[in-house]
C-alpha cells in the first residue's frame, strides 16, 4: 500500500512536471446580454397651431352625475370599474405630500392619492375612511416615464384606469392620453439651503451655481437652455430625491423641480427653503386613456364637486398648509376649462 502511494507520488511529480501544476480559476463572472430592445417610436408632437391652444381645455363634466354606489351609465368605463369592484390607479411612491408611502402605516398617501379616493367614492359610494379597508383602489406605483404607457396599456394589460402623478397637462401628451380638467397649478421653482442667501434662479445663474435636476425631466431641459441660463452648472441625477441628497451633501447649491415636489422636500429638510417665483407653468391633470372620454367627463364632474363643496381646499390645507410645506392662505381651486 505504501509502495503504491510512493509510485503514485512519483507519477504525480511527473504529471505535475508535464502539466505545469493545478491552478485556481478566476472568479465566476456572469455577462448578461442586454435584452434586445427596439427604440420606441418617437412621441407624437403637436403642430404649432395645436400647441397654441389651451392644453388645459378638457371634456365637459358629466351631467347629471350618477349617484355614488348606484348604477353607472350602461356600457361606460365607470360601469366596467364598478363591476370589477376596484379602481386601478397609477401613482408616485416617493413624492411626499402628493403620493408617497407612509412608513409607519404602510399606506400610500398625499394630495394625488386623495384625489383618486374622491373618484373611487364617486363610483362605489361609502365613506372616505373605508376606501383602503374595502380595497376600493388597487394602487400601482409607477415612475414618471411609466405614466403614459400605463394609461395606453389599460388595466387588462398591466396598465391602469387613471393616473394621479403630479402630471403636467400639455398638448403633446393629449395626443396619447386624455386629461381631466386642471386640479392643481404647479410651476418650476428652486430649493436652496436656508442660509444660502439665494433668492431666485437668476441669482443662481449669475453666481454660476450648481443646480440639480432629474435626468430626462422637463425641469433639466429648462435649466439646460444656455441662452436663458448661461451661468448655471447643471447637475443631473437619476431621481429628483437624489437631488435633495446632493444638496444635503454639498454636491449641489440648489435643486429645481415642480414647487409641489420641492414643498415635499422642505417638509423633509427644514434647513431648506423654496425661493423665487415659478418660472414655468405646470398645470396638473388626472390622466386617462384617450378613448375613455366618458370616464374623463365623469372625473371632471367629480372635480367640479370637489372644487365647489370645499373639499379641494380641505385637501390643500391637509397636505400643503398643515404640514408647513406652504404658507397660508389656501388659494382658490384652479378654474376648469372645458370645450374639447
Amino acid at each position: 500500500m505504501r509502495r503504491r502511494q510512493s509510485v503514485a507520488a512519483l507519477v504525480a511529480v511527473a504529471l505535475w512536471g508535464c502539466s505545469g501544476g493545478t491552478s485556481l480559476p478566476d472568479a465566476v463572472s456572469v455577462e448578461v446580454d442586454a435584452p434586445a430592445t427596439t427604440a420606441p417610436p418617437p412621441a407624437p408632437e403637436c403642430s404649432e397651431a395645436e400647441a397654441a391652444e389651451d392644453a388645459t381645455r378638457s371634456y365637459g363634466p358629466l351631467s347629471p352625475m350618477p349617484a355614488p354606489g348606484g348604477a353607472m351609465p350602461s356600457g361606460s368605463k365607470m360601469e366596467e370599474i364598478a363591476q370589477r369592484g376596484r379602481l386601478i390607479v397609477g401613482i408616485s411612491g416617493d413624492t411626499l405630500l402628493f403620493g408617497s408611502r407612509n412608513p409607519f402605516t404602510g399606506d400610500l398617501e398625499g394630495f394625488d392619492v386623495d384625489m383618486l379616493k374622491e373618484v373611487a367614492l364617486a363610483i362605489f359610494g361609502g365613506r372616505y375612511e373605508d376606501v383602503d379597508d374595502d380595497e376600493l383602489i388597487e394602487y400601482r406605483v409607477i415612475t414618471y416615464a411609466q405614466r403614459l404607457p400605463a394609461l395606453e396599456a389599460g388595466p387588462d394589460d398591466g396598465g391602469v384606469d387613471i393616473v394621479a402623478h403630479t402630471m403636467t397637462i400639455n398638448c403633446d401628451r393629449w395626443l396619447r392620453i386624455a386629461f381631466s380638467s386642471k386640479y392643481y397649478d404647479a410651476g418650476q421653482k428652486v430649493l436652496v439651503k436656508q442660509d444660502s442667501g439665494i433668492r431666485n434662479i437668476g441669482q443662481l445663474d449669475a453666481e454660476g451655481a450648481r443646480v440639480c435636476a432629474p435626468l430626462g425631466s422637463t425641469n433639466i431641459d429648462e435649466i439646460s437652455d444656455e441662452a436663458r441660463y448661461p451661468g448655471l452648472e447643471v447637475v443631473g441625477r437619476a431621481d429628483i430625491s437624489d437631488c435633495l441628497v446632493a444638496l444635503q451633501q454639498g454636491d449641489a447649491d440648489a435643486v429645481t423641480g415642480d414647487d409641489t415636489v420641492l414643498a415635499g422636500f422642505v417638509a423633509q429638510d427644514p434647513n431648506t427653503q423654496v425661493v423665487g417665483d415659478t418660472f414655468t407653468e405646470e398645470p396638473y391633470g388626472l390622466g386617462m386613456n384617450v378613448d375613455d372620454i366618458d370616464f374623463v367627463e365623469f372625473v371632471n364632474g367629480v372635480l367640479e364637486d370637489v372644487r365647489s363643496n370645499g373639499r379641494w381646499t380641505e385637501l390643500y390645507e391637509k397636505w400643503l398648509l398643515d404640514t408647513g410645506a406652504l404658507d397660508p392662505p389656501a388659494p382658490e381651486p384652479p378654474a376648469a376649462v372645458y370645450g374639447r
Partner: protein
Amino acid sequence: MLLAREAGAALGRLAGQGRTANRLRGLQAATVVAAILFALLGSLGLARRDAAIDDVRQASSQLIAVQNIRVSLVQADSIATSSYLAGGQEDPAKRTEYLAAIARATDQLVDVSNGVDSADAARLAEASELLGGYVGLVEQARANNRQGFPVGAAYQRQANAVVTNDAPEDADIVTLLREVEQSQRATINERLDDAHRAGVWFDAAGWTLLGMIVVGMLWLARRFKRLVNVPIAVAGVLLAIVVLAGTSRQGSSVSDADEAVGTLQTADLATQSRAAGFDARSQEALALINRGNGQANEARWLIAQATAAQSLDRCRVCGPSALAFGRYSDAHERLRDADDSGDWDGAVAMTLGNQGGLVNEFDAFADATESVSDDNAARADERLGDARSGLGMLRIVTIAAGLIVAVLVAIGYGQRLREYR
C-alpha cells in the same frame, strides 16, 4: 629492435596509465562537484518549494479573508435594505446583526491589510474609507425613513451604490475587494508554478549525480577488474535512498498541494455563491424600496442569481446549497409576481420573512454555503501545511547526503589513484 619495441610498449603502458589516472582524477573531481551541487541545488530547490507553498498558504488565507469581508459587507447591506422596508418596525435582532457584520468587515479589513502588497493595501485602504461613508449613508437612510421621509430611499440607494455599482467611474467596495481577491489568486497560481519548478532542481541534480556514480562504478569495475568500489557503492546506495525518498516526499507534497488547491477552489466557489446570494437579497429589497422603479434592481438580481447558480454548479460538494438556492429563487419569483400584480405589501412581507418561506430558504442556502466554505478553507490550509511538512528535514538530509557522497566518492576514486603513485 626488440629493445626498442619493448621500450615503446613500456612508454605506451606508461602513457595509458597516465590517461587512466587523469580519467580517474577527472571523474573524481566531476562527481565530487556534482555531489556538492546536489547538496546546494537540491536543498535550494527544496527551500524554494517550501517557501512557495508557504506563500500559497498565506495567499489562500488572504483570499478567504478578503472574500469573508465581501460576504460580511453584502450581508450587512442586505440586512440594511430589508430593514429599510420594515421602517419603524425594524427588528432589533436584525439591527444587531447588521452592526456585527459591519464590525466584522471593519476588523477584517484591518487584519488583511497587514499581509498584502502595497497595491492591494491601497485598494483595501480605499475600501475602508468607502465603508466609513457607507455606514454614514445607511444611518442617514435609516434616520429619514424613521421620520417618514421618502428621501431615505435615495440614501439607501446611494449606500448600495457604494457597496457595488455598474459605473466604472464610481469606485465601489465590492470591485476593490474583487481586485484584491484576483491579486491573491494570481499569487497562488504563480507560487504554485514556482513550487513546481523548484522541485525539478532536486530531481535533476540527484538523478544526474546518481547516473554519474553508476557510470563511474561500471567503468572502475571494467578497468580495474574489481567488482565493487566500496566507498563509491555506499555513496550510490545512500544517494539512491535519498533521491527516491526525496522524490517520493515531493510527490506527496504535490498531491497535498493539488488537493489543497482543489479544496480551496470549493471554498472559493461556495464563498462566491454566498456573496452573490446576499447581493441578490439586497437587490430584491431595493427593487421593493424603489417601488415602481425597481427594474434595474431586478436586472441586477438576475446577474447575482446567475453568479451564485454558476458558482454552485462548479462546486463539487454544493448540492444541498444549490437546492436551497433554487428554492429561494422560486420564492423570489413568487415575490416578483406578487409585486407585479400590485400586492406590494405581500411582496414586502415575503422579503421580510413574514410569509412565504423565502427567508427560510435563503437562510438554508446561506448556512449551507458558509459550512462548505469554512470546512474547505480549513482543509485547504491543513493540506498546504501537510505539503510543507518534512521538506525542511529533507533539505538537511540532502545537504548531508551530498557532502557524504562527495567524501565517499573522493575516497573511492582516491583508492584507485593511489595505485598510480
